[in-house]
């Protein structure tokens, strides 16, 4: 089965890979695989495994999408050095399909995690905090906003 790859018009090589076909499927498959791995490594209940996956997903995506700024190569000459990955994708255009997908994923994970743990504390508290932080960080109004100067440029 073949898919067509149309070269996007995004010049930022740090983010243009996200516009090719197959990214969404890979993302979802990786989350599912990590759930299976956590389940087999720790031998915990499925609900606990989903909570662990959800919280690990929160930490990893928060760090790479909303904390780290700039690009991993130097020939951009630092023009994206003040922007996080989330602010760089699709040249800062808000509410595109990719952004909507990435906003929905933590919410879906939250629903699965809280459902499979039967909405018990303390897991519910951590899950809710995680999804709250992630979804607020992805709002269009939060574009280039640094609360209390956290993570601002030097």
């Amino acid at each position, binding site marked *: *089965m*073949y*898919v*067509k*790859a*149309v*070269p*996007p*018009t*995004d*010049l930022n*090589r740090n983010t*243009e*890979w996200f516009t*090719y*076909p*197959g*990214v969404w*499927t*890979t993302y979802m*498959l*990786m989350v599912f695989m990590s759930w299976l791995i956590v389940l087999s490594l720790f031998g915990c209940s499925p609900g606990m495994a989903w909570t662990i996956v959800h919280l690990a997903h929160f930490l990893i995506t928060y760090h790479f999408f909303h904390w*780290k*700024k*700039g*690009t*991993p*190569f*130097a*020939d*951009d000459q*630092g023009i994206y*050095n003040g922007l996080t990955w989330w602010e760089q994708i699709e040249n800062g255009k808000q509410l595109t399909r990719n952004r909507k997908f990435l906003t929905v994923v933590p919410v879906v994970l939250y629903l699965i995690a809280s459902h499979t743990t039967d909405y018990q504390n303390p897991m519910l508290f951590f899950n809710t905090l995680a999804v709250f932080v992630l979804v607020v960080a992805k709002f269009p109004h939060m574009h280039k906003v640094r609360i209390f100067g956290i993570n601002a440029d030097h």
Partner: protein
Amino acid sequence: MIAIPYLAALTTYFSYGLLFAFGQIRDFFRKILDWSGSNNLQGYAPICVAHEDFYVRRLYLRIQDCFGRPITSAPDAWFDVVERYSNDNNKTLKRTTNISRCLNLGSYNYLGFAAADEYCTPRVIESLRKYSPSTCSSRVDAGTTALHNELEKCVADFVGKPAAIVFGMGYVTNSAILPVLIGKGGLIISDSLNHNSIVNGARGSGATIRVFQHNTPSHLEEVLREQLAEGQPRTHRPWKKIMVIVEGIYSMEGDLCKLPEIIAICKKYKAYIYLDEAHSIGAVGKTGKGVCELLGVDTADVDIMMGTFTKSFGSCGGYIAGSKELIQYLKYTCPAHLYATSISPPAAEQIKSSIKVILGEDGSNRGPQKLAQIRENSNFFRSELQKMGFEVIGDDDSPVVPIMLYNPAKIPAFSRECLKQNVAVVMVAFPATPLLLARVRVCISASHTKEDLVKALKVFDQVGDLVGIKYFPAEPDKEQEEDKIVKLD
């Protein structure tokens, strides 16, 4: 349009994700281990801010032995590659004195002028004796010799424009000319896969840059209409100048520009067009005059034609060809003309002599023979690879033949296996190409004989099976089909 097998796309993303994760984990532990040790910065700022060297350190250095291989002979059809070894997992490479003679499928040697030529080389040595290796001056001071003037006239006649100006370096031609031609308040619309020199020149000019989808004239029209309606950013005043920049043959895709449609659109909306013929001048077209001749476009319709001499002419340097007024203007303003050293005289002589050979003015038939040979070679190679089931992109007649790999692990695998069988190929990966689309880029030359190409095909067949890159079904042999038909009777 590249058709990726869906499974290959998924596994490629997963592989890059894994490599990225391992790089991050190693960086994390390196940070912890270095926390205790003192840094010897003494108050200076670090050279690399944040993680801008992450890709080079954690991904590129792992397969460093596939890039930058030193050679010790002229880059002819066969050349000598120095063997290297590494003691610390490819972080540093050490040269040995062993040399392997390999088939050269990577050099931009389209017409075979890279090695000694019976017409060009004696003349180049003669000019070396007469003019010495360097003019030791910029063009405006004392660096313009009779050779330079003859060369500019020769290039202008070859390309089909009234006048031309020649520079010592091809990359500099783009990055120093664009800031002079257009400035703040202008609009540059460039193809999404344009070369880095064009991107640099456009960024340096200060004009607003918009990108249109690769080789899609309809999208170019859409972008033009939108920008014309909006005007300059914030003030919405009309643009001072609009320039559309395209390339003749794209070096990573091997496909030709859709020049007639793009010129029609530019004429309709009164935008200038800048054509970069780095890979197509001298290599395509019936008499080697580039993509305009191949596609039947009148050179008067292209406002600025740029090209380099590195690929088909076996020399170095770049040129810009245009109207007399344009070239006169460039001679007053372009910094590469005013301050940079002029092109080396032996290099200029090589260009002149190779143009004479291509046009047949040296009295022999070698020029047209070379042109026919490269066309035949590229079409033969491309069709044979496609029959074997490889995914080859690019148009027919183009001497650049990229074969898609996709997965990052196949890049060093293909390169090393080919080198073991004495075939040297060039790999292209992220960030020169998009993340998913890593490829092997083969450059066919007129000096490749049929036996060379057949050997290369055999090696590719073997290595392709080993590495697993035959994404399309192979076509069955014609002989087998005929046998089957006979048996039914």
